[in-house]
């Protein structure tokens, strides 16, 4: 019997004041909603950064559809191969052999060999006990000219272990040569958004000032150039999702590794920059004071323009939303909502500070099913990040992912500029936030 739908929803389990929010998991797990916002990068986008590489996926139609269309929308279908699994492959056949044969067929159909191939078996391969070691042994023997990257698309494992993209980023460091250490180069590992220019990114500015070249995968013109970045004398990373890759590479090549966490508060920024300067033996005190003064000026200027306008932040736009909320609150901005489904242990201090100092701040789930019916806000909200823009239905938003190339005091300057621009020039939300993989090529 059909029954009239009731358009209301109970949000008590989906949005809680920060003063009452449990840490690090504010929300009970349950069914999961997915917003129409798709700015974040997935494993296809990440892998396509590897120059002269191709990707092969081995899975059923439903899982395949997401990745093959990702490649299509970023105009990279010619770098994508697929082996579509059918019932009989699982029930009546040897999945190890089916997988190997399928990958070989892809290579043969391509005719020319790519420099590297990222191979993605899926959850089913775990459950069917597929011998992927045997598959790679055979592939490496048959195609020694191809560098095989052993990736996974196995989201069933991600809630209790590493995610597919963390392992992919680690695999993507394997091609780097073990070369003599060159201290005039540093690698920024596992990033999707290139480091911004010197005025918006302190890492870019400081390394440039010290004559150190910052290597990023997205700027390598070919596979060989990328491999040569193994010479860099220092491995840097800015996101916890790149930790496995950066530390794994550092361990393999016996290099130092620094986590330049994308934090927003002065003491933390100073500590990270001083650690980097200490590594190179640089005195940066005057430089740092100058940057800090510029950043403070930018914040005051933006505050004068934005005033008490409510602000919402999400975890797609910024890597450390609680840290940003704390910095903004400390400078008098009116941060009212954070869209995040959980936090890392490293964010505890910011969380405790906000509990004491941000009475009006609410933590909102993005996954809870009732968020499908999240109401429009009563007034105008400045959203930082695409997911916040969707929930707030706000044309006043800063479109960026993963900090948008910003870092440190430069990030203050860059973000203030973007916030002011967002207020001055509202834009249509849908065409921006529904584009998949913000910053990638897009054929739509």
């Amino acid at each position, binding site marked *: 019997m059909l029954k009239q739908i009731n358009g209301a929803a109970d949000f008590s389990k989906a949005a809680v004041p920060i003063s009452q929010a449990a840490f690090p998991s504010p929300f009970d797990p349950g069914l999961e909603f997915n917003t129409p916002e798709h700015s974040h990068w997935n494993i296809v986008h990440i892998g396509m950064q590897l120059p002269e590489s191709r990707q092969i996926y081995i899975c059923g139609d*439903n899982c395949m559809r997401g990745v093959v269309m990702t490649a299509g929308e970023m105009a990279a279908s010619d770098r994508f191969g697929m082996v579509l699994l059918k019932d009989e492959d699982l029930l009546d056949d040897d999945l190890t052999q089916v997988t190997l044969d399928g990958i070989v067929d892809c290579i043969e159909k391509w005719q020319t060999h790519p420099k590297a191939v990222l191979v993605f078996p899926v959850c089913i391969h775990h459950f069917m006990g597929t011998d992927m070691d045997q598959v790679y042994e055979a592939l490496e023997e048959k195609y020694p000219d191809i560098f095989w990257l052993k990736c996974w698309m196995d989201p069933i494992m991600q809630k*209790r272990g590493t995610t597919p993209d963390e392992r992919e980023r680690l695999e993507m460091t394997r091609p780097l040569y073990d070369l003599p250490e060159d201290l005039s180069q540093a690698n920024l590992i596992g990033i999707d958004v290139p480091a911004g220019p010197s005025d918006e990114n302190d890492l870019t500015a400081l390394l440039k000032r010290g004559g150190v070249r910052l290597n990023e995968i997205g700027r390598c013109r070919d596979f060989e150039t990328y491999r040569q970045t193994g010479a860099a004398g220092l491995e840097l990373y800015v996101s916890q999702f790149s930790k496995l890759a950066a530390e794994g590479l550092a361990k393999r090549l016996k290099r130092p590794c620094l986590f330049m966490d994308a934090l927003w508060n002065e003491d933390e920024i100073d500590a990270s920059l001083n650690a980097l300067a200490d590594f190179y033996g640089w005195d940066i005190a005057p430089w740092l004071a100058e940057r800090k003064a510029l950043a403070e000026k930018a914040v005051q200027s933006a505050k004068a323009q934005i005033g008490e306008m409510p602000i919402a932040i999400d975890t797609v736009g910024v890597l450390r939303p609680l840290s940003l909320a704390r910095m903004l609150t400390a400078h008098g901005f009116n941060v009212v909502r954070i869209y995040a489904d959980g936090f890392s242990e490293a964010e505890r201090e910011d969380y405790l500070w906000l509990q004491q100092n941000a009475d009006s701040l609410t933590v909102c789930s993005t996954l809870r099913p009732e968020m499908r019916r999240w109401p429009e806000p009563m007034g105008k909200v400045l959203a930082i990040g695409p997911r916040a823009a969707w929930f707030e239905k706000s044309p006043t938003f800063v479109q960026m992912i993963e900090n948008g190339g910003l870092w440190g005091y430069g990030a203050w300057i860059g973000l203030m500029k973007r916030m002011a621009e967002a207020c001055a020039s509202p834009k249509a939300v849908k065409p921006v936030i529904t584009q998949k993989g913000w910053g990638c090529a897009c054929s739509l």
Partner: protein
Amino acid sequence: MKAVYTKIPCYSGDVSGAASALFELGGMVVIHDPSGCNSTYNTHDEIRWYEQESLIFISGLNDMDAIVGNDEKFVEDVVDAARRLHPRFVALCNSPIPYITGTDFDALAAMIEDQIDVPVFYISTNGLHDYIGGAAGAFAAVAEHLVVQQAEKKPRTVNLLGLTPLDFDAPGCAASLTQKLEASGWQVMSNWALDCDPDKIRKAGSAAVNLVVSSTGWEAARVLKRRFGMPAVAGCPVGGFAPRVIEALNQSEADGRTRIPYAEVLAAKADSKPKTAVVGEAVGAASLAAAFSLDRGEPVQVTVATESPAALCSEFVARTEGEAAIEARINQADCVAADPLYRTLLNRDTALVPWHHFAFSGRIGYSQAVNLFEDSAYQKLLERTANGSIK
């Protein structure tokens, strides 16, 4: 291997088909899946997600719950969400891992239904098939569980079965189709299920005939035939083929027999080397081919690239699996009406007439989608095939 592809994408998966079919009916669709199914669906397979509300969720299955069979969590989560959101019904969909671990979804549906006062049913998907089976299973479940007994038949009324944006992606398709039928003296009793009224679907049992406009509606037609004795006609009233569809509706109302009028048209003009070919889902592609054939007096080849039911296919409406087989078949023609992403399979001398199919190319090229129930749009396509345009 026929399942290896390097040039074209795959069609939307069965889970997306189920979700698309049920999108507007006010229910809650739950896909028992770790991650990705919902994102894939709402990004690439669903044009309504941004503007229209629909309760479609995944369970967020993890490895340990799958291994130890922690079905209680799934049941609790579905019940909790249903109590908070008040759907009209709940539909459960399977995915590869619960499929291979043999999760008993009928039992889970019964356990959930015991705790909430709306129908709960399972749609047999496993993520290893294209959208046809999922959407067909969803519509069949609607026919089985949600359509109520009606006292009497209403003459000259029709249910439109199999109408989803996966096959009918251009804005206005449902309205144009309805207008076309009304102009021929047929009233639409219910529309399954695009720009539709769910309450009318509930009363679908009183219609005189079912019009199956895509393969996704065929199974529901079989259920409605069993439950209410309603005959069906498979075909889309496009171009010069439209009068044949209307004639078939008239005949089926009179004699209670099911008809597939495009089969006769295409068989009558079959040729081993047709100049024109159409690629797509069986009913839509064959109807378009029949229209081309009648309007130009020439044979037209049909390649069915989806998992359409055998009853809707034939020697002349050939189900063709795999990239290599499709490539070999469609290059027999000089001109191919197909989704633009098929261009990569065509020889240099074979012309492509673009016919966007959302279940294939999704958002890519969506602005070129055409509403073939509009005669002017069909006419343009016909002219393009006549000219062998767009190499």
